[in-house]
């Protein structure tokens, strides 16, 4: 059983999104996603200031197995990226909801968060 915290929102593509603080959310990949990918060896993050539409490709993570695209869960502008992942991509495996976060984004429209899945909804995606 993978860990799916109740306080987060989720995408079908296995990203998680925190609740907004001053219009900014934190984004990462789920415990299930990191488990499926295996040991991560490389993370390519967006640049601060980059604008993205929802569901646009915005980062790449590579595991020992393969490269995977990360899709931006909501439209907005990148405000911060997790620089620690440049040297320690394994943080995503060790702590996907904590030290393994990927980037922070200023949301264009906070109402977009309502279209994301809650923990139960994401669990259903995994069970399907």
């Amino acid at each position, binding site marked *: 059983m993978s860990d799916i915290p109740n306080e987060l929102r989720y995408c079908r593509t296995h990203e998680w999104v925190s609740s907004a603080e001053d219009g900014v959310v934190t984004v990462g990949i789920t415990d299930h996603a990191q488990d499926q990918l*295996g040991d991560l060896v*490389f993370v390519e993050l967006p640049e601060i200031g980059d604008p993205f539409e929802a569901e646009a490709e915005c980062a*790449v993570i590579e595991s*020992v*197995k393969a*490269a995977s695209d990360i899709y931006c869960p909501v439209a907005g502008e990148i405000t911060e990226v997790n620089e620690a992942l440049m040297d320690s991509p394994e943080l995503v*495996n060790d702590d996907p909801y904590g030290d393994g976060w990927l980037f922070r984004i200023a949301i264009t429209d906070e109402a977009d968060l309502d279209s994301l899945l809650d923990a139960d909804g994401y669990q259903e995606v995994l069970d399907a």
Partner: protein
Amino acid sequence: MNRKTALNALHRAHGGRMVPFADWDMPLHYGSQMEEHHAVRRYAGMFDVSHMLVIDLAGEQSRPFLQRLLANDVVRLQTAGKALYSCMLNEQGGVIDDLIVYYLQDKSFRIVVNAGCADKDLAWIKEQATPFAVAVTPRPDLALIAVQGPQAREKTLPLLPTTLAERAAPLPVFHATVQDQWCMARTGYTGEDGFEIMLPATEAPALWQALAEAGVTPCGLGARDTLRLEAGMNLYGSDMDEQCSPLESGLGWTVAWEPSARNFIGRKALETKRNAIDNKRLIGLLLEGRGVLRNHQKLFSDGIEVGEVTSGGFAPTLQRSIALARVQPNIGEACSVEIRGRQVPAKVVRPPFVRKGKICIAT
């Protein structure tokens, strides 16, 4: 329904992440491929390689048959137990499979072939054997366990029947010894010391469990691939196949040209390419920029496409990305690889990248 080795239930009990591989249900890893890789470089790890097929060859003409069948020459196998790596070629000089052949005793030999090639290999070998007095016997009743790493031998020997341990302890590299249905070979596919153990499938679970209790780390196919890539060893189907000759696969050294009268299958085709100046070659690559080399990425030199990655990945020992690549002759040391539309600088190096726990290239 994929085939299961004798150790399947144990893999599942150990938390193995099972994947389909060449029609078999095999463990990719048991939690962390990276940790399994390091265990083999630093201590000892074990792999279930029972999906590989053992084929025994016995009979009056087993030796002349193998001299016809294989590009390397079993004349090099004069003492019982000695092993030889060889390609098995088609008439066009393409590689049907790569294998290890062991001289067991008297007129009997044993070869071990890749799981993905087992059916076609067996059909090919039986067909080629028709004119020879040789019996071809596949041995699906045998399991194979590879124990690899600097501590592999010391951890394995105490678990063997006493007399077999006494015979296995002094084995030189690339030699094997047989007792009853057990065969201990000092061979491997990781660049580390160790044994490959062939034994009755019914006895394999007990040995696997004893090895685990002795502290040998179970390792999956994932670590097996990164270890062999660091060791600069080819993977059949990625680094060579029926469309390329050993000369273009970094395996020219395994072709025994002398004596010139030995007419091995593929020799005629290979001789026309032997001194060709336009033969492609298989080289090692070290990625200098950020990213990960992957199979089929294109290589460029001065803006011109010069080749393709045949096996790429992240090398845990080097903490860098490395690859084997097939390239045009005469390319320089500097090149670049196209990774998702970007040109990333890479350096041409001579494999192996890592052997016996030590990095062998300038990084």
